[in-house]
């Protein structure tokens, strides 16, 4: 009796989950496998029907893509953009969360204001930044003594140093748009922290910075580490932001924008797929390194 009930439950469960599985299988998993196959085939939109799914596998795409002069700078850009964007958005989010931790009049409104950049459509905010930073009529440039072409100038000098202007602008955009994400997570964690630890620290005479350093921050490392992984993964393969702001010009080309250009303007599906696979593999390698490094640190902390 119990066995048939269990069987029944299992069957009902599979039946109920099957629409979910079918759509993820058809629209996500199978296309991914196909993407891997395409990376090893010499295909363009014109000849795809004659090529077939299997056979004709070659490493030519990878050889071609990795030897293109633009690829390695794009990978380096992607890395700089991702690391800087991730670190900045988390740091700024942490400051915002600490500032809004205690209740004050109008906190709900401030919180709402902080969340808008993250919620607003990327196309709208990218256009907004483009307009604000426009060298001719952008409001930011009216505040400066000399207009700066933030989004179309690859290099500029700042305090006598040569800086990649457009890349820094794109990173600033990233930090501005995604710090609310970190803010939300960190604030939730901060508000769930037990009060007694900090009260004990106050009684022991710890100053605010000491309390932050020795009481609050140790309890936040976990969420910061999780945020770092999430933001790294999302930013590393991000396409929208850079494409909309600069189109990949002025020294901001990242690999995902290259993938898009190979796919649409060059119509080279195989090369596009190969680049996307390389990007995904590099991401996985970085994640593995990070997790290994971090898991080690975690164990040490627990000791």
């Amino acid at each position, binding site marked *: 009796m119990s066995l048939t009930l269990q069987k029944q439950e299992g069957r009902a469960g599979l039946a109920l*989950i099957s629409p*979910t599985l079918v759509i993820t299988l058809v629209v996500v998993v199978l296309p991914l496998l196909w*993407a891997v196959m395409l990376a090893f085939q010499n295909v363009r939109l014109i000849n795809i029907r004659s090529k077939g799914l299997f056979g004709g596998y070659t490493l030519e795409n990878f050889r071609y893509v990795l030897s293109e002069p633009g690829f390695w700078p794009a990978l380096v850009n992607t890395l700089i953009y991702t690391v800087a964007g991730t670190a900045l958005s988390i740091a700024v989010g942490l400051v915002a969360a600490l500032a809004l931790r205690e209740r004050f009049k109008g906190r709900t409104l401030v919180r709402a204001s902080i969340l808008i950049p993250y919620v607003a459509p990327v196309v709208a905010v990218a256009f907004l930044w483009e307009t604000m930073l426009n060298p001719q009529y952008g409001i930011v440039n009216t505040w400066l003594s000399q207009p700066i072409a933030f989004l179309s100038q690859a290099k500029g000098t700042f305090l006598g140093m040569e800086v990649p202007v457009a890349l820094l602008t794109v990173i600033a955009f990233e930090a501005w748009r995604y710090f609310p994400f970190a803010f939300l997570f960190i604030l939730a964690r901060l508000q769930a922290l037990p009060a007694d630890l900090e009260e004990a620290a106050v009684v022991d005479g710890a100053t605010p910075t000491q309390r932050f350093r020795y009481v609050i921050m140790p309890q936040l490392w976990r969420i910061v580490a999780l945020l770092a992984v999430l933001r790294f993964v999302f930013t590393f393969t991000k396409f929208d932001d850079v494409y909309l702001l600069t189109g990949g010009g002025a020294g901001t080309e990242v690999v995902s924008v290259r993938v898009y250009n190979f796919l649409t303007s060059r119509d080279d599906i195989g090369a596009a797929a190969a680049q996307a696979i390389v990007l995904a593999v590099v991401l996985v390698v970085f994640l593995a390194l990070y997790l290994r490094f971090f898991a080690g640190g975690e164990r040490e902390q627990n000791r």
Partner: protein
Amino acid sequence: MSRTAEPALAAGGGERPASARRGRPMSRDRVERAALRVLKPLVIAVFVAVTAFPFLYMVMLSVRDIQELILDPGSLWPRRLTLDTYADVLDRQGFLTFMRNSAIVAVASVVVTLLISIPGAYAVARLRFFGHRQVHFLFLSVYLFPAIVLAIPLFVLFTMMGLRGSLLGLILVYIAQTVPVTVYMLRNYFETVPRSVEEAAAIDGCTRLSTIWRVVLPLSKPALMATGLYVFMIAWNEFLFALLFLVERRESWTVSLGLSQLAGSIEIPTTVLMAGSVVLTLPIVIVFFASERLLTEGLTAGAEKG
């Protein structure tokens, strides 16, 4: 008060030598507290300025004539208010059509995603079936998987099937991308529904499906709303797939795609496009703040049940 604030700023958060700390144990504390009292409102003000100002600028720019912007780019308040920009963007530039397309895509995605994810979430929350432990892994990987990799085969597939330019393909992709997350969100909520209520329904003769329909869903209304609005936001904001699938057919453009495509043209004044940005942003901001309240309500309702 103001006397202590001055040196506080100079001291900042810097570490002082241990001897000084031992000598006057309370002074560093007092200095830091005073510094924070001054710094905190300052920091909060900066955050509000940095996040709210661009959007204020967006609205202000959308209600003035382009001549005014060219002549006086530094002014924030328009000298003469005009709503012609909105009339222009909605009618002449076709944003009304784009909004209709976006609405169709978003609403269809919400409805179908919920239809698929409700039974799925219930199964994960309540039933032990073959592989129910592995399902989480699948969902997590779909959630984290880069869209740019997925874009290639789907672009090729839709081109081959002649689905490019149709909203249907786009809806399919949005469903597939949001279903894993919504299953996860709903599962968390379904688990808070007491089993005893369901068992009572079963004893009263409800089948499994009617138990979901009559007992579980009415109890999870806030979660359903929040999940639906989440899907709506994703579908309304999405850009990459809309660009890949729809760019060649102007009458199928979504609002996001429409704005991004028209932003490059020289003929359309920036202020008109700003009106388009407002049109694109406003529904999402409204939906987000509506759903935020719902989410918190849902959580407190759960707390009352214990």
